[in-house]
């Protein structure tokens, strides 16, 4: 990267490629450029197959100013050489960006749309700095690119804040997102995904551990109940979760390998990868919590049964009371946590189910609720419920009390989705979109950069 290849290095490269001595390739290269220079001096253009054309162009006389003295001076007319690379060479060099295509922009597109477009195209490093601010507002995940260290720092902080709600963190890298981002060539996307992936894996590992502890407590409560097989199953389950995170590790490693040559790797596979990784993680957590929920119920019932049968025997009764108390404690904890997970996954399923009917009129009549996450913003919801992201302003209006800054909503915030009729939302009506846009300008005055 940005290294200067000197002539000796070039000679060596040519010598090894052709299996000739360095001397031969040195003589050849020197002769080559001597010949090219000669014919250029003679006023001839030189075309080299697969490399390009060296062309002479006349530059007319022009005036210029000496920068140091401020004196005006005349630059006499002269010829200069221009180089046009051959198509095959130009394409080979532009390969990293080959997937980009020229996009037509409609004439009434707003600033925000433009920025959105450019952020979905995901520009590398410095190029994306300009849109970074906007991206941080609209697409925080995209914004966490290697160039924007600040944004990235914010992101990780946010994710740690969200750790309290494990299920939420797991939910974040939604498969749909992964696929969406997979459409771009950017290494940033990979890096970012890689970050969330890491978080994800950590969380899953943590989950597995806590559940193991809890299930131990549950098993202790069982006491007399000799459910060795179930016990094994729990441990096994914990193992599968850990195995999953092990697999995540493996994927991560493979991704790192890919990351070393990001430009050459296929875009599709990247998106596909993350889709699978996320699905695995979600499935593992959901299954595990469901299993635990059942397990604890069983433990509780058993403990009660044990208590009933153990009447008359003082020691046994005391034991059983302890067992019941322990069972109630642990099952309460697990019930809460699994209820959380279940609620979130249900919500997710609901969201997926709703997507096909977006904009359905009967649905639009009811007031709905949704939760803001790191990958689910007001614009996402707006697109889902109203068919156009610009109507996010109405969701904001409805939830003004809870949201201080629409650019920085804490993940986990529950918002009310107002019925479309309340604000006259209609994605096919230009006037309605214009109203939303005007409101957006009111809420977020355009900055002057």
């Amino acid at each position, binding site marked *: 990267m940005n290294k200067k*290849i000197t002539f000796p290095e070039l000679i060596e490269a040519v010598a090894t490629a052709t299996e000739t001595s360095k001397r031969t390739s040195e003589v050849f290269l020197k*002769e080559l450029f001597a*010949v090219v220079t000669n014919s250029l001096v003679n006023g001839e253009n030189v075309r080299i197959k697969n490399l*390009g054309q060296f062309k002479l162009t006349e530059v007319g006389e022009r005036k210029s100013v000496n920068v140091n003295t401020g004196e005006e001076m005349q630059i006499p007319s002269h010829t200069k050489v221009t180089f046009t690379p051959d198509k095959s060479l130009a394409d080979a060099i532009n390969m990293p960006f080959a997937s980009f295509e020229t*996009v037509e922009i409609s004439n009434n597109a707003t600033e925000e749309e433009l920025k959105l477009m450019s952020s979905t*195209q995901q520009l590398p490093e410095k*190029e994306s700095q300009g849109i970074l601010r906007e991206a941080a507002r609209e697409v925080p995940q995209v914004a966490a690119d290697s160039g924007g260290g600040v944004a990235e720092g914010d992101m990780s902080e946010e994710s740690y804040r969200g750790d309290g709600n494990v299920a939420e963190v797991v939910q974040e890298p939604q498969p749909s997102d992964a696929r969406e981002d997979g459409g771009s060539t950017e290494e940033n996307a990979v890096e970012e995904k890689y970050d969330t992936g890491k978080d994800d894996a950590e969380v899953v590992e943590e989950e597995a551990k806590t559940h193991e502890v809890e299930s131990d407590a549950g098993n202790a409560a069982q006491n007399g109940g000799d459910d060795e097989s179930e016990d094994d199953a729990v441990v096994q389950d914990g193992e599968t979760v850990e195995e999953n995170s092990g697999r995540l590790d493996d994927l991560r490693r493979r991704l790192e390998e890919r990351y070393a040559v990001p430009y050459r790797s296929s875009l599709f596979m990247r998106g596909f990868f993350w889709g699978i990784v996320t699905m695995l993680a979600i499935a593992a957590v959901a299954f595990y919590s469901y299993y635990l929920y059942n397990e604890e119920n069983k433990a509780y019932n058993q403990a009660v049964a044990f208590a009933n049968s153990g009447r008359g025997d003082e020691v046994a009764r005391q034991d059983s009371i302890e067992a019941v108390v322990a069972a109630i404690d642990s099952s309460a904890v697990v019930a809460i946590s699994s209820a959380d997970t279940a609620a979130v996954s249900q919500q997710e399923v609901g969201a997926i189910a709703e997507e096909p009917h977006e904009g359905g009129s009967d649905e639009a009549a009811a007031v709905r609720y949704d939760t803001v996450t790191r990958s689910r913003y007001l614009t996402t919801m707006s697109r889902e419920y109203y068919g156009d992201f610009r109507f996010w302003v109405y969701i904001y209006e409805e939830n003004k009390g809870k949201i201080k800054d629409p650019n920085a909503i804490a993940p986990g915030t529950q918002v009310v989705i107002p019925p479309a009729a309340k604000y006259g939302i209609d994605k096919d009506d230009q006037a309605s979109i214009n109203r939303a846009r005007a409101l957006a300008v009111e809420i977020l005055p355009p900055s002057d950069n």
Partner: protein
Amino acid sequence: MDNKSLVETLAKRLNRSQSDVEKLLEAFISAVKERCGDLDSVAIPGFGTFEAKKRLERISVNPATGKRMLIPPKITLSFKPSALLKNKLR
């Protein structure tokens, strides 16, 4: 001067067969391709520097239709002639 006459001249001056010269030329081009593909620059003393440059994305307007197009970013190969070559051409 086209590619064919270039190869001929080189073969004569080097006392080598044309296929040899073509092979060497091909190796040189692939070396440039490889190095510039990694955003390195290849400097040839007395001639100039081949350099890969990143171009920013931009919005351009078609003056005929007034349509605005978002031109994607790209990497182009540029050649910067050395001072020596420039002076020879003057």
